[in-house]
């Protein structure tokens, strides 16, 4: 018997029981669409995070005060304040002899504060930083200018506003040259940053930038910095630069060979790796949970196929009487169950892609840099899994059908 006629017989059988076929399929549809959805949304979320890290530049190195595990998070994540990183350390790094690949260095301390101008008030973050901040973070100044090296060192009370802060405090009015209050101190506005939007986990548009000396001494009363970022001339030289920086800082901190680093150096590339592995693991874990519903769907199919074999005992008897061999009956029922799972799988894939697309659409509408990713391999794997579920769970009922004795089957009431 040809495959086409087996297929014809099987599909005719399914068509005659549309509701049941659909309900049986539902388990597979839900299972496959969740797997597709989770993998796609996982990939989208990953792309979101990675795009943001990458947007900071792959030739950036961050230095955090305090020691940490090789690939663990920096200690500041746990909320402990580390005071080991000083401006003098970073000045040493600026020396070309020490670290030849450095293009720019910036460092900062931050605090939150209420900024006021006349009746307008804004709760934001002040970043006390250096003149190189726009260069390292790649954000241009829209109006006026950024802090210069003089102001950086001599406690100048000047401020550069983030785009949102400017709008909140001044609206459409001219801000340059005006005064605002930050924690009771008067600052003169010298510039406004270009609008940048959300990046990483922060929105730089909500920041104001003041000289690092002003922030340390006047606003916070400290002498350390909480983070430094260093721009390297090429991403190829990042590893060399990390080694050089490490050597300089150990020397600065007078660490002998036995002592561990009291600082942490992280390259962006490393962060990308860490985030990728975390999101990958999370995605596969969730996909595995979703795959459990495939198992449940498969058991549902086995159940329905067994019922179907019993219901159609006389039909099987008749088919055998008019010449169907064991393998004909076996293939008829196997094709039937595979057709159910494959069709369910295809519907599930389409549904999963639609929902993933919707998620991407909403995420983009909300302003996230979200990629709509459909992995072709996930689609193919889903199809094969559907077929395998049909084959595996259809085998026993089909075998039972093929074993029926034609005389007994014909007399079955």
């Amino acid at each position, binding site marked *: 018997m040809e495959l086409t006629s087996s297929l014809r017989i099987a599909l005719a059988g399914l068509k005659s029981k549309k509701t049941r076929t659909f309900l049986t399929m539902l388990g597979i549809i839900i299972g496959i669409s969740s797997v597709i959805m989770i993998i796609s949304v996982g990939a989208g979320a990953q792309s979101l995070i990675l795009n943001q890290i990458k947007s900071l530049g792959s030739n950036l190195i961050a230095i955090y005060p305090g020691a940490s595990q090789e690939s663990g998070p920096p200690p500041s994540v746990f909320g402990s304040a580390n005071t080991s990183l000083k401006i003098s350390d970073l000045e040493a790094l600026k020396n070309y002899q020490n670290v030849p690949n450095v293009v720019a260095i910036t460092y900062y301390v931050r605090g939150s504060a209420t900024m006021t101008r006349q009746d307008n008030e804004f709760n934001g973050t002040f970043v006390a930083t250096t003149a190189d901040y726009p260069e390292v973070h790649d954000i241009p100044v829209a109006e006026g200018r950024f802090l210069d090296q003089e102001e950086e060192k001599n406690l100048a009370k000047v401020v550069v506003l983030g785009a949102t802060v400017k709008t909140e405090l001044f609206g459409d009015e001219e801000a340059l040259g005006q005064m605002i209050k930050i924690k009771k101190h008067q600052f003169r506005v010298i510039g406004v940053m270009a609008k940048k939007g959300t990046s990483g986990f922060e929105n730089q548009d909500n920041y104001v930038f003041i000289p690092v000396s002003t922030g340390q001494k006047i606003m916070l009363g400290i002498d350390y910095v909480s983070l430094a970022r260093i721009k390297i001339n090429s991403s190829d030289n990042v590893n060399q630069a990390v080694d050089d920086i490490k050597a300089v800082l150990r020397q600065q901190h007078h660490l002998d060979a036995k002592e561990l680093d009291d600082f942490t150096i992280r390259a962006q590339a490393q962060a990308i790796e860490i985030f990728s592995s975390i999101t990958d693991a999370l995605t596969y874990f969730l996909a595995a949970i979703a795959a459990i519903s495939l198992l449940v769907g498969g058991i549902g199919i086995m159940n329905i196929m067994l019922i179907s074999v019993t219901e159609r005992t*006389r039909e099987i008897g008749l088919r055998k009487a008019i010449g169907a061999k*064991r393998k004909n009956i076996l293939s008829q029922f196997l094709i039937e169950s595979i057709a159910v799972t494959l069709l369910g799988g295809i519907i599930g894939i389409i549904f999963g892609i639609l929902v993933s697309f919707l998620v991407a659409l909403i995420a983009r509408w909300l302003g996230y840099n979200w990629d709509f990713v459909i992995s072709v391999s996930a689609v193919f794997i889903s199809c094969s899994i559907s077929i395998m579920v049909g084959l595996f769970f259809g085998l026993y009922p089909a075998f039972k059908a093929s074993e029926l004795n034609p005389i007994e089957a014909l007399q079955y009431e």
Partner: protein
Amino acid sequence: MAKENLIKLSSLEKDYTNEEVVTNVLKGIDLEITQGEFVAIMGPSGSGKSTLMHIMGFLDKPTSGQYLFKGKDVSNLTDDELAEIRNEEVGFIFQAFNLLQRTSVYDNVRLPLTYSSKKFDKNKVIEAIKAVGLYHRLNNLSNQLSGGEKQRVAIARSLVNDPSIIFADEPTGNLDSKSGKQIMEILQDLNEHGKTIILVTHEKYTAEHAARIIKIVDGEIVDDYQVKERLIARMEKDLTK
């Protein structure tokens, strides 16, 4: 005209074992049926007439004895070999029709051809349906037919492979007398055109449409005779037109 010996059974026995109790259903059957005969096998229920039909129709195997079909020993074939013979040599008509539900007349009649190794020929299906006078019902579904029509579809299905022999197991048992008469007419007509027909029934009236009656009681042939006053079923109008 010397007729070919189609079926030859010699001391055929069939035992059923159920929970170690052996039931001797057929006790040494000797029987010859030649090409073109119309034979009725009669007997009360439990007499073994159905078992005999099942063995002759290759649905079951004898416990002992010999079955020669067209001169070939078919007593010990495998299940798949039996399935092949059933497909090529035999047509079945059952009391309960056994049509595929919600399936068209055409597809029901076509069914044996899907299991055939021969090339599919649509004309065979059409011819078989025409032979039972149901061409106008070609695309009707089986559940839209009357009982008599269903049985006629079953006859068309049994004919479609052009078998050597047709087994009819109580073909009129589920039908009213008028429909039953139609069925017997078709069978007689087929027989006149050379088909060998073996009819299994417990009704004397139905059996007398055959040319020869074999009576079975308790697994043994007790009588085997030619019908002297054979009943001829004739409907008022010709079904095939």
